[in-house]
């Protein structure tokens, strides 16, 4: 045989082998495919248990996963922060029950705690103290009583605190971080009677001294000895953030993400600086030199109060993704564990403290931004658990949904054996069309996700094609708001889709002026009865002008899209019933757009105006965001009527005018549809799913009291008791806001779910609305244009 022939045959055999190997490889599963939240640790490290794997079970399945558990303290104990790892390997934590300050010590990495009352309980003031604990047991803390602040030091080995006198140039302390046994980083403020260059004028009681003279505050950041007698270093501008509290005249400046680096010679600390390009990690040493050690920390936006460092100098910080670690000298920020199924990953959670024990566990003090309640959680790596729970449930939605995430956390707590993989399709960067195509292909092939969140999709199509399963056995519909869920229930009591949240489009005005607003025409007449709105946005001075009652323009609208989307919140079901276009309703909507736009002269408005919004909250009530429609009514006082979408009952307390208030009355937005509401988190189960039972457990969690009561800034709960609790939670804010109506009665008027129109119909309407605003088309032409634009769309639906 010739050499060439042999070479050819060997080559052919190699190619055939490669082909065979590829074919076999195509059929095998990825070795590392595990549901999110049950992911194995990101990287090995000598001192980190996350590196450990169980050798006993590796032949069958990988073992070990991170576990979240609530730290078992007494129910009424409020921890002051995350536990401090001590030099002797124990953990120390302080907390109070409103009367006594307790010390908790754990010798088993936080699994159990020994409670002992301190003998300085009488020092606790009106507000929980600010406290910093050193590894040797020293404690530095502030107490507040009747507005006054006192500072104490409990030295290591002693159990009796001594009061410290604040040094000159430091009048209040906002933040304390102990850097070494005799060094503390302080950020606070100093006051003076003269306006400092970088200070702020405080108003009200806190801004005047006893003689009524103004007081000015300016931020201070310095390193002192533990007795606060010697200033070791004045840090000129290391403050990474500032926060203003509701009704508080004083802003509080702080160092973001501070953590002492105990591996350095002398004292040194980490801090995060936030710039336009992202967050950077810096070290500040004894000379005050700040050195950037890591550019662009991923997901570090929420790490301002949640950071820690271990004895090797590795830096850890909180994010909704999980805990990130930056090894000292390392160039990679690694995710130690994912928080998908943990409380940490739930939206609206603020980390108030983070610590890392020598055994590798983490402790995070998480506060709910709605209720303001803080809970301490422990995160540890359990080698005895399988890396991924046996039952992997796939939950799918187009966009990331925080209520779904809360339900996943709840399910993990109730059923640890059920693992959940959450797929937010658009988060992976695909287009909406591609995401829907993929979903449809899977569903029609009899596979696909087990649980579907159908927000942004035509849920009726999935329902009519028989792709959704009846899950009436998993959800007690009698416990839900009957008027909200009734349109979704089958005539035989079957349930294939249910909203887990809902919002309400509202219009409001001064007392007595909303009573006649019962139709779009009436609203238009009311707007036209007021002076026209000038061409302005939040970049113009006129925007902030408070107008007298007779001088106020009707309602805030900035663009044609603004006008159209407002009307569609109540008119969408009238325009499109799923099979035909109602030209009368189109005419009514476009007529409103034309009438208001012409009256306002919106042709001369900016084509891309500056959108303005403000978020508020506090005193235990939920956060509320107001956009221009509410801002121009309540905050600037320019508009006679306000508009907005109610996502929490706290909305009703947030809509009052801040100046010249005469009380506000809100009604559900009038329009062609009576009692309009916007359903959200539309949950369904894939009829082809083999995991109906687990899907039922997930839905049970989604509609449970615990998840429904959580405020996720995505709507009101549909569970009756949860809505009642939400109203009760926000009642003081509602009352304070001057809303006098019956809140329950308001919710009882809701009867028609309004879902967003299909993109094609919306695009056709928007094109017509733009033409009407620009004055390039008559109303008749615009209606005809909409009909023409939708000819193909309608024809396809025949």
């Amino acid at each position: 045989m010739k050499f060439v022939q042999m070479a050819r045959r060997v080559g052919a055999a190699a190619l055939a082998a490669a082909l065979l190997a590829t074919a076999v490889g195509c059929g095998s599963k990825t070795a590392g495919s595990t549901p999110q939240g049950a992911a194995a640790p990101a990287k090995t490290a000598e001192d980190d248990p996350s590196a450990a794997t169980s050798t006993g079970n590796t032949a069958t399945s990988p073992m070990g996963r991170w576990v979240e558990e609530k730290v078992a303290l007494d129910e009424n104990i409020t921890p002051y922060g995350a536990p401090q790892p001590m030099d002797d390997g124990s953990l120390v934590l302080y907390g109070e029950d409103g009367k006594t300050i307790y010390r908790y010590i754990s010798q088993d990495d936080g699994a159990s705690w020994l409670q002992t009352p301190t003998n300085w309980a009488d020092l606790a003031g009106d507000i929980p103290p600010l406290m910093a604990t050193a590894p040797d047991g020293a404690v530095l803390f502030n107490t507040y009583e009747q507005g006054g602040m006192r500072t104490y030091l409990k030295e290591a080995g002693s159990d009796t605190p001594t009061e410290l006198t604040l040094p000159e140039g430091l009048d209040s302390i906002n933040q304390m971080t102990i850097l070494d046994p005799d060094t503390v980083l302080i950020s606070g403020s100093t006051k003076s009677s003269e306006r400092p260059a970088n200070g702020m004028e405080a108003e009200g009681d806190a801004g005047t001294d006893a003689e009524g003279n103004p007081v000015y505050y300016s931020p201070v950041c310095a390193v002192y000895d533990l007795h606060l007698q010697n200033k070791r270093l004045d840090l000129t501008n290391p403050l990474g953030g500032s926060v203003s509290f509701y009704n508080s005249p004083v802003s509080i400046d702080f160092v973001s993400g501070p953590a002492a680096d105990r591996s350095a010679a002398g004292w040194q600390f980490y801090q995060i600086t936030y710039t336009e390009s992202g967050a950077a990690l810096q070290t500040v040493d004894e000379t005050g030199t700040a050195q950037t050690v890591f550019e662009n920390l991923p997901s570090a936006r929420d790490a301002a109060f949640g950071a820690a460092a271990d004895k090797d100098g590795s830096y850890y910080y909180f994010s909704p993704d999980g805990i990130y670690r930056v090894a000292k000298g390392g160039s990679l920020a690694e995710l130690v564990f994912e928080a998908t199924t943990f409380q940490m990953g739930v939206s609206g959670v603020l980390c108030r403290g983070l610590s890392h024990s020598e055994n590798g566990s983490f402790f995070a003090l998480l506060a709910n931004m709605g209720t303001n309640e803080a809970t301490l959680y422990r995160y540890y790596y359990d080698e005895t658990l399988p890396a991924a729970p046996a039952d992997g449930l796939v939950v799918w939605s187009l966009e990331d949904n925080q209520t779904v995430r809360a339900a996943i956390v709840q399910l993990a707590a109730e059923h640890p054996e059920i693992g959940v993989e959450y797929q937010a399709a658009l988060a992976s960067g695909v287009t909406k069309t591609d995401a829907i195509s993929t979903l449809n292909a899977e569903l029609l092939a009899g596979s696909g996700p087990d649980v579907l969140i159908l927000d942004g999709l035509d849920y009726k199509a999935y329902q009519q094609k028989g792709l959704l399963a009846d899950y009436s056995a998993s959800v007690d519909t009698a416990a839900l708001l009957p008027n909200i869920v009734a349109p979704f229930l089958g005539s035989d009591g079957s349930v294939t889709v249910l909203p887990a949240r809902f919002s309400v489009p509202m219009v409001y005005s001064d007392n007595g002026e909303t009573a006649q607003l019962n139709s779009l025409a009436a609203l238009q007449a009311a707007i036209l009865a007021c002076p026209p709105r000038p061409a302005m946005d939040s970049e113009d001075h006129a925007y902030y002008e408070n107008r007298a009652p007779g001088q106020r323009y009707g309602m805030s609208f900035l663009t044609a899209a603004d006008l159209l989307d407002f009307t569609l919140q109540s008119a969408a079901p009238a325009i499109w019933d799923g099979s035909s276009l109602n030209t009368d309703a189109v005419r009514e909507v476009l007529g409103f757009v034309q009438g208001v736009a012409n009256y306002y002269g919106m042709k001369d408005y900016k084509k891309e105006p500056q959108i303005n919004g403000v978020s508020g909250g506090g005193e235990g009530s939920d956060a509320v965001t107001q956009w221009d429609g509410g801002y121009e009514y309540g905050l600037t006082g320019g508009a006679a009527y306000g508009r907005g979408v109610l996502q929490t009952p706290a909305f009703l307390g947030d809509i009052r005018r801040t100046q010249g208030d005469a009380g506000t009355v809100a009604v559900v937005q009038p329009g062609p549809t009576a009692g309009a509401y916007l359903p959200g988190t539309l949950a369904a189960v894939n009829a082809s799913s083999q995991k109906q039972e687990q899907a039922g457990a997930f839905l049970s969690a989604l509609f449970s009291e615990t998840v429904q009561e959580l405020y996720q800034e995505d709507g009101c709960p549909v569970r009756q008791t949860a809505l009642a609790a939400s109203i009760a939670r926000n009642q003081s804010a509602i009352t304070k806001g001057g809303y006098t109506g019956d809140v329950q009665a308001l919710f009882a008027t809701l009867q028609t779910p309004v879902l967003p129109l299909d993109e094609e119909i919306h695009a056709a309407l928007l094109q017509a609305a733009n033409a009407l605003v620009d004055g390039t088309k008559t109303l008749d032409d615009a209606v005809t244009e909409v009909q023409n634009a939708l000819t193909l769309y309608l024809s396809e639906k025949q």
Partner: protein
Amino acid sequence: MRLHSIFRKSSRAGRPPRPGQKAVNRLAVFCFLAPSMAGVATFYCIPFLDVLRRSVADTLGQTFVGLANCRAVLQNGAFRLAAKNTARFLATCIPLLLLCSLLLALLVHAAGPRGKPYQTTFLLPMAIPVASIVLLWRVLFASHGLCNRVLTSLGATPVDFMGTGAAFWVLIATYLWKNSGYDMVLWLAGLGRIPQQQYEAAAVDGAGTWQVFWHITWPGLRPAFCLAALLSLINSFKVFREAYLVAGQYPHESIYLLQHLFNNWFLSLELGRMSAGATLMVVAGLGLAGGAWLVQCCAKYGARKAQTRGIRRQKAERQGENAPQK
């Protein structure tokens, strides 16, 4: 090794086949074809059978609905429009493409070695990614695009290329621009196969350019024509990508093709209708192919008959000449 010897033995011309040789040959052929047959069956035949099944079933493919889907599709205005546009597009662009590319090929062939660089140049559009073509399309044909600027500068009225019937011709132009080079290469391959002696003999006989083309070039290009036509048909379905990326799910009516409709039906879960539409398309395609085959058969039959008649006439004439004169 075994197959090699089988072929070597079977190719020995003139020798009578050994007993069982035919069966071995068939097995060898089957072995060679099996991988590709398996691929075709897996990725085309079985899915197509599933489409056939779903065309007479509901969305989930579980309930038999007879011809309801087909009836619904035939009554659907969007389907009729899309089918009409698709047929119009194919009927316009394929002849135009074949003609243009043939002209280019003849020119390049006539240019001889100087025409070589053009072969590469004309193939360049095929190497341009669809996204770039779409961008180019927008730059050229947008309402404030380059074409309208040129028109305006010449004092002409701007044309709404994508919002009027002009969109159809934009699509045709794009298709021609992109595929002419490829078809030209196919034609050139066909031209290269025509023996030079035939041209020389024609020149000796004093044949004109048209006569040479009609009697020598065109008959020689027939195999290339079939290949070019088939590949052009296949490529014509790919033009949907450009139309979709530029104009979205609902373009101007003139470029609303069957792929638009099927894509939209899939998004709205109309799988039964989609399958019925696809089946109807295949039936129409098979009908056309069958018609073409019949025409070809008739033409061959006619030619054979004419040939037979000619031979008979020649024989009769020869017999007439050889017959003893009385």
